């Protein structure tokens, strides 16, 4: 496939021609063939590689994986938040949005299919205008996710303001900065300036704080991030993400930095809000317990790919991919204390020249076979379950094992 194509510098527009995307009735977002790469001094890093998945309306889609598996980059790619030296190099991100589809149907018909638009083919400014009101995102560390010198209330009110300005004039970049002229720019860079945020936005921000269960929201809105505890701040971040009433919330490790008791509070808050508003959520985490608690379907990511995806039940009880098995086997459970079955080896390098053209998990896989030296396609096990592993249609054959190519347990390929 295209994963080694280092010269690809722009999104390939023709991706849709060879196989048309088909959308399910409740599909909200469909990511196809997404590749995001980072061009670093050490070489090209294939952070996300030919990724496919879809998110349905009103569901929680979990993305699980270890650090460096590309799960965060996936979330950032959807919001076009990839920063230099990274770039989305290929793929399509289809998003259901009738008004956009109508708007671009004529001028850019290749970017429109029914009610869906391919965000990567729309102008960048349009893609970005969806931030806040169609998509929003919450991050791992609430303490570093707020500007330390603006009040929490103001930061949330900014989100409200953006949403209001956008809804009154969706595609105008100018309207978003109206009232924020040169004077405000200069003053705002020195003094705490409220010139962007209006009184109603501030009131709405206070309502949102109350909604996420922050006591004394009026007073708390006037406080600065450092005056909040981690848990409170994570609630505030959720409030901020809700300000734009988004269709899709991307939660990137929303509980990882928090203590377990707080983690439980935040998870139930997220889950309540999701149900109440019927919005879709992409939940990115390394904690299988967290997905188990709130996700409907999930994808297990490894080395920039989704190795296995399906409903929670399929993945937990009927997993095919040895990596999924390894991941589940590595977790020390509080209910029993049997010996862990760790995955040998290390998290793989994503440097293009070190990746090779085989199953990326083969060197750590206890069931690696000869065919694994070639990249496996994605097999469909059933409607709710797909896997990128040869074991989907054949049994592990000891004779064909290539385990000896690689070091034994605990050994590191060097």
């Amino acid at each position, binding site marked *: 496939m295209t994963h080694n194509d280092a010269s690809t510098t722009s999104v390939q527009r023709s991706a849709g021609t060879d196989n048309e995307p088909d959308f399910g009735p409740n599909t909200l977002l469909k990511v196809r063939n997404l590749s995001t790469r980072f061009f670093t001094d050490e070489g090209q890093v294939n952070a996300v590689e030919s990724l496919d998945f879809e998110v349905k309306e009103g569901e929680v889609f979990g993305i699980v994986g270890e650090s460096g598996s590309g799960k965060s980059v996936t979330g950032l790619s959807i*919001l076009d*938040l990839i920063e230099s030296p990274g770039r989305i190099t290929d793929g399509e991100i289809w998003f259901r949005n009738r008004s956009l589809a109508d708007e671009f149907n004529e001028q850019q018909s290749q970017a429109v299919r029914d009610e869906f638009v391919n965000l990567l083919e729309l102008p960048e400014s349009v893609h970005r205008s969806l931030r806040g009101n169609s998509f929003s995102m919450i991050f791992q560390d609430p303490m570093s*996710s707020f500007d330390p010198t603006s*009040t929490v209330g103001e930061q949330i009110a900014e989100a409200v303001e*953006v949403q209001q300005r956008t809804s009154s004039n969706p595609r105008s970049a100018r309207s978003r900065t109206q009232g924020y002229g040169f004077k405000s*720019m*200069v003053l705002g*860079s020195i003094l705490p300036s409220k010139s962007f945020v209006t009184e109603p936005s501030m009131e709405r921000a206070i309502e949102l704080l109350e909604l996420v269960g922050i006591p004394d929201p009026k007073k708390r809105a006037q406080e*600065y991030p450092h005056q909040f505890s981690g848990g409170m701040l994570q609630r505030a971040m959720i409030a901020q993400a809700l*300000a734009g009433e988004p269709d899709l919330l991307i939660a990137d490790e929303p509980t990882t930095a928090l203590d377990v008791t707080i983690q439980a509070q935040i998870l139930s808050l997220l889950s309540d809000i999701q149900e109440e508003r019927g919005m879709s959520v992409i939940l990115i985490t390394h904690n299988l317990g967290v997905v188990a608690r709130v996700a409907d379907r999930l994808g297990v990511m490894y080395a920039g790919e989704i190795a296995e995806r399906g409903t929670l039940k399929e993945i937990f009880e009927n997993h095919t991919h040895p990596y999924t098995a390894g991941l589940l086997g590595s977790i020390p459970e509080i209910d029993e204390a049997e010996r862990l079955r760790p995955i040998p080896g290390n998290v793989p390098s994503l440097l293009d020249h070190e990746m090779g053209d085989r199953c990326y998990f083969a060197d750590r896989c206890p069931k690696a076979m000869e065919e694994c030296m070639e990249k496996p396609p994605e097999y469909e096990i059933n409607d709710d379950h797909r896997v990128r592993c040869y074991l989907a249609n054949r049994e592990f054959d000891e004779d064909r094992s290539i385990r000896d190519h690689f070091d034994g347990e605990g050994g590191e390929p060097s």
Partner: protein
Amino acid sequence: MSLLKFTIKRTIHGIVVAWAALTIIFALRFISPVDIASALIPPDVPPTARESLIEDLGLDQPWYVQYLRYIGGVVQGDLGYSYVSRISVNQLAINRLPATLELAVAATLVSVVLSIPLGVISATNRHQVPDYLASFFALLGISTPNFWLGIMLVLLVSVMLGWFPTSGREFGFYEAMRLLILDGNRYGIIQWLYHITLPAITLGTYYVALLTRLTRSEMLDQLSEEYVRVLRAKGLPETLVTFKHVLRNSLIPVVTVLGLQFGSFINGAVVVEVVFRWPGMGEFLIRAIRTVDWPVIQGTLIIIAITWVTINFGVDILYTIIDPRVTLEGESE
């Protein structure tokens, strides 16, 4: 901690620092290789008058008595009399201080007005042509000596092009403003601007370089902070991200440096004032050193020290405005 308590605390800090400075300045007299009496008394004074002058000046007293008198004098605002001009040092300093402060403020403005946009452009265009250009200018500025730049500017802009006067200060700012406000006469303020431009640019340039680099690196630091990504994720326009949040946070260390530099502006002013015949404290101090006018040397140093302490105090207060984490330290948990 309330602002009031913070202010009290900072004031006491300031007083302690000022006291230390005063003591060091006092000690200078004793460290100086020249006999204090001969330094304090003009060489032409005949021996009889000399004795009485020594008595008058209290130089026959033990050092601690002299010290107490000296501190007492400073506390009462009495800095003694210049032996060269026989005028009270206070009077002289009052004439001189505004000039230096004007120059320092103007230089600060020059450096801020030039460096912050440069820093922003540099940071937002990292590793692109504007960034390299800004870095080049920064390097140029930092490696150009003040006096040389001053002389070159005078030669080019004043002597050859005749755009600005070579030196001097026709009007003080206060005087110029009074003229403007009371009489509606703009002549004074125009002259003031006309004369201060070159010295301010000369003095400010070095700091342009420094502040540009600082702003750039702070901006880059801030831009890599997680909250910037969050601001973008919520759809905030880039202008607001850059100015309302990133720049504002980047300026916090810049303000600290500015505050510290305001003091060095006064030091740097010594050279610039001499080159531009700018009648400020620096030029005054140099003259006093040349004539070994001890009361003036002491008085000038004291005023510089006190100005510096005061300005840093001001910066601390400003800090509490731009960085809410400062005053509220200790309250939250």
